[in-house]
């Protein structure tokens, strides 16, 4: 015989000793599911704990020590942080990173958004155009660096050969501090724009077409549709792009700099991430490098918090 519960669903007969009561079964199932969730999360959590959180804590702690790379460790308090303030190379690298950040983040954002708006249109060969724009991102940054080094070679590089036909000669794109950071920025935009274009494109495709149709019927122009529909509804995507581009700009870029300029000429492309690498692995100043890394993480956290606050966490329903 089956019993009918309050919702009208049937339950098996409650045979004492053979089948546990409903509430016990629910608890057991919840326990099993909890255990399953725990087991599924365990590998990733362990990985994060061992390879991210523990090294992060150790790195923060290391910032208060002098460690020379041969196991000689001594506690020096905040000396590494004080050293930063008086280290002209650190200050120069911080300045270069700030300029790089201020130019590159908005540039990648704008270029990627414009490209996404372009390839969203129904234009011939749009698939091929999207692929072509995304293609640089799938190439290794080392290959990108070597390829541009070849194209931008002094005197005989393709770019300079082309420019010589229009009367522009003698520019050293990778050897003159006036041009190097700009050159690296342009190459970085070229490399990254395809990826963020795809992110924006997915955001654009999530916006209901009915909104645009209604706006058109109401007589809204292209700019009005962008300003009142696209821009606000893209806010979650924009927040994601801004944060990830910022992180990519601050913590990435090493490969490109390493291959293209080696931080030169005259330190003009010595980003902080490159300076950290130099201090740790070239000079054996692991404590100092860890301290700079901690400062960089702090800057990133502050910037991310600011972005979250400024964009209200990317929510679109607050206006």
């Amino acid at each position, binding site marked *: 015989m089956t019993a009918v519960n309050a919702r009208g669903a049937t339950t098996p007969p409650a045979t004492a000793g053979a089948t546990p009561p409903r509430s016990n079964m629910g608890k057991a199932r919840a326990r099993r599911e909890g255990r399953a969730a725990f087991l599924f999360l365990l590998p990733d959590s*362990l990985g994060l704990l061992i390879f991210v959180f523990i090294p992060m804590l150790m790195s923060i702690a290391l910032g208060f020590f002098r460690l*020379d790379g041969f196991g000689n460790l001594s506690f020096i308090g905040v000396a590494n942080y004080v050293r930063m303030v008086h280290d002209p190379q650190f200050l120069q690298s911080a300045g270069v990173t700030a300029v790089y950040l201020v130019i590159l983040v908005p540039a990648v954002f704008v270029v990627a958004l414009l490209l996404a708006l372009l390839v969203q249109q129904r234009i011939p060969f749009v698939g091929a155009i999207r692929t072509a724009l995304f293609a640089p991102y799938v190439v290794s940054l080392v290959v990108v660096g070597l390829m541009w080094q070849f194209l931008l070679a*002094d*005197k005989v590089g393709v770019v300079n050969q082309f420019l010589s036909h229009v009367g522009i000669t003698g520019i050293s794109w990778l050897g003159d501090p006036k041009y190097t950071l700009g050159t690296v920025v342009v190459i970085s935009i070229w490399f990254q724009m395809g990826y963020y274009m795809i992110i924006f494109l997915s955001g654009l495709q999530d916006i209901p077409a009915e909104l645009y149709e209604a706006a058109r019927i109401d007589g809204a122009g292209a700019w009005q549709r962008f300003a009142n529909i696209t821009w606000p509804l893209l806010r979650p995507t924009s927040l994601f792009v801004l944060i990830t581009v910022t992180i990519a700009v601050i913590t990435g870029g090493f490969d490109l700099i390493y291959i293209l300029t080696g931080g030169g000429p005259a330190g003009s492309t010595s980003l902080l991430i490159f300076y950290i690498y130099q201090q740790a*692995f070239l000079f054996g100043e692991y404590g100092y490098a860890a301290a700079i890394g901690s400062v960089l993480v702090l800057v990133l956290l502050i910037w991310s918090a600011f972005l979250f606050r400024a964009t209200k966490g990317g929510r679109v329903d607050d206006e």
Partner: protein
Amino acid sequence: MAELTPGGQVTRRGFLLGSAAVAATATAFTLSGCSTKGSAAGRPLQFWQFYAPQTQTAPDLKAQNDWFQKAVGDWNAAHRQKVENVFIPNFTDPSNTRLATAFASGDGPDIFLISPGDFLRYYNGGALLDLAPYMTKEAIADFNPDILATRQVGNGVYGLPMEVEPLAMFYSKPAWEKAHLSEGDIPKTWDEMLDVAKKLTTPSRSGLVFETVPGYFQNFTWYPWMWQGRGDVVDAHQNPSFDSKAVTQALDLFGRSVRTGVAPRTDPAAGDLPGAFAQGYAAMWQSGIWQVAGFRGSQPKFEYGVFPLPTPPGGIPRTVLGGWAWCVNARGRNPEAAARFVVETVGSMSEASVQRIVDWCSVAKSDMPPRKSVDARMKAKGAFDDPTLKYFHDTILPTGRGEPRYPPVVYKAISNAIQQVQTAGGDAAAQARTGNDAIEAFMQTYKGGTLL
């Protein structure tokens, strides 16, 4: 073992248990891979270098590989504690982090090669074993004192040089002919060098190439220009002497060469000298004796010449002598056996040891010898009959000084000064002062091996 349902399917419980087991095993393997220290006991001593074992078929690379393999093979045939060659790609690039990270994790190799540029970092870190107790006085005296000095601290010998690599100026004979220049135009002074470079410069060719990439190597190439004016980074009492006329004029030489457009801001042909000469991208280039082998390997028919580095007014002929040295990790697994291996292989007066260096400098490579006995034997066997090598040996080598050794902060101060003047148009005197200030601040608290 995963649980199966009567139908042979894996149950959820079984799947979860299996997944957990796989994850645990993978984690254990991953973590065990983080350290090799415990499991390394009883293994052969590791010799990290950039020559062997490798399978390259280029004649010079094969000869170098064979030499290293034979040297280790000879030792292994006669000793219980074996040694193993470990090939580290890109080892010569100072930005290669493998050696540094190995030491940082307490797992450095037992035997390894380093250049003087890195010496103080390893010595001050306590990573180098003194080899003097394993050597005879006769063997120590057999080394060229200038070459050994940068590997010595007090009476200790912390590295044994296997070769000497002087710098000189290489020039492309076809480029000179096109510019209507002859051997009589070979410059002897800096001004003459810049004048000749101007005549050799074309829209596609750089008349003169100085190293442009910031780093240990650029500093290495710049030192002789400073020494020619009797300048130095620190004086005999270890006081900074970077703010001097000699330093200023040497910095300005690099700056002038770029300002006048005769030298490039980036290395032509990505630094491949024989390739750049053959393709007409460069006409004169400051580089080392290793380019002799480079031309032989990649441009055997190309006609090039060599001349000593020109000097400033009132200056003295000077070049720098590079080269790699064998070192022993003081914290390795069997430092004593490692030291005996190094000394017996390249630092004893035995017939085999002397002949081994003769073979290295004249068969496997085309280098100058670091030892007097080796020099005599190379002369006797006609190793310097080749006109270019004879020129290096008789004319350039006697003007040489061993590559200096400076701690990273000093190296960086010098590098910054060179870069600022060479590529950013900085004032040479001001940069010499800035560099001097940085070196002075560092030396006030520096404790470690003498700067040479």
